[in-house]
């Protein structure tokens, strides 16, 4: 079983996996999100609602991890990739697992690659999020 602190190395919190987070996709919130990005709210859950149910559900674990010591005021979201097996349905409950793929500092900048795997109630894949955070020193 993965838990906080089971993998440590010399480069920050690389390899660390956080406990799974469940998230129920509120249809009204997904619709409001769709309106904010110019999508038809009737077209289902907007793809980048993954910023909420996948990345958004797990990134606070990284940001709140004292060992990760992320200075939020110096944090930049530099790159983002989502891959989907399918789009989730309104009302569906999904489960996300956040993982620090790499944590490297060079030339006064720290680069944290944070990956989240989101699965459905049957354990089947829904979405994978890969975020690159840059923390200026």
């Amino acid at each position: 079983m993965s838990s906080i602190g089971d993998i440590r190395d010399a480069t920050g919190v690389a390899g660390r996996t956080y406990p799974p987070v469940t998230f129920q996709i509120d249809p009204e919130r997904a619709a409001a999100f769709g309106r904010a990005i110019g999508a038809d709210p009737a077209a289902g859950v907007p793809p980048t609602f993954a910023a909420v149910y996948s990345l958004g559900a797990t990134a606070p674990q990284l940001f709140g991890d004292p060992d990760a010591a992320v200075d939020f005021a110096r944090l930049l979201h530099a790159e983002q990739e989502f891959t989907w097996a399918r789009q989730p349905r309104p009302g569906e409950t999904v489960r996300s697992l956040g993982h620090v793929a790499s944590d490297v500092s060079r030339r006064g900048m720290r680069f944290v690659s944070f990956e989240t795997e989101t699965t459905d109630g049957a354990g089947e894949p829904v979405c994978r999020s890969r975020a690159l955070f840059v923390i200026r020193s």
Partner: protein
Amino acid sequence: MPVAGPVRDPVVSQRAVTFTKPQIAAYAEASGDHNPIHLDDHFAQTVGLPGVIAHGMLQMGLMATLAAEAAGGAERLRRLSCRFAGMVVPGDTVTFTAEPAGPGKLDLRAINQRGESVLTKSSAEFAPK
């Protein structure tokens, strides 16, 4: 090489969006990202910004909306990526473009009114019909 079917010109989808403070606030509310750099001009200025800036994920969301339309529906989208390369402030107009780049692939661009790319390295993949 013989051409089996009709040759179609690539269909380029494009949309210009002028960002506003109410739109950024609506995205903050719906996404749950209430970082004050997106909501409070005074706070944003204390951290060296000109004022509030749009969420990178709002830019990516608008790009996703266009990409989903170009793909023939959101449920077909299988991958979307970008680099957040430039700041977007209220009043900026960003032109989002999705251009077919082979079967199931889109090249994506987001360029502001000064001709600067605000999202780079952006592309999408989608499942065929």
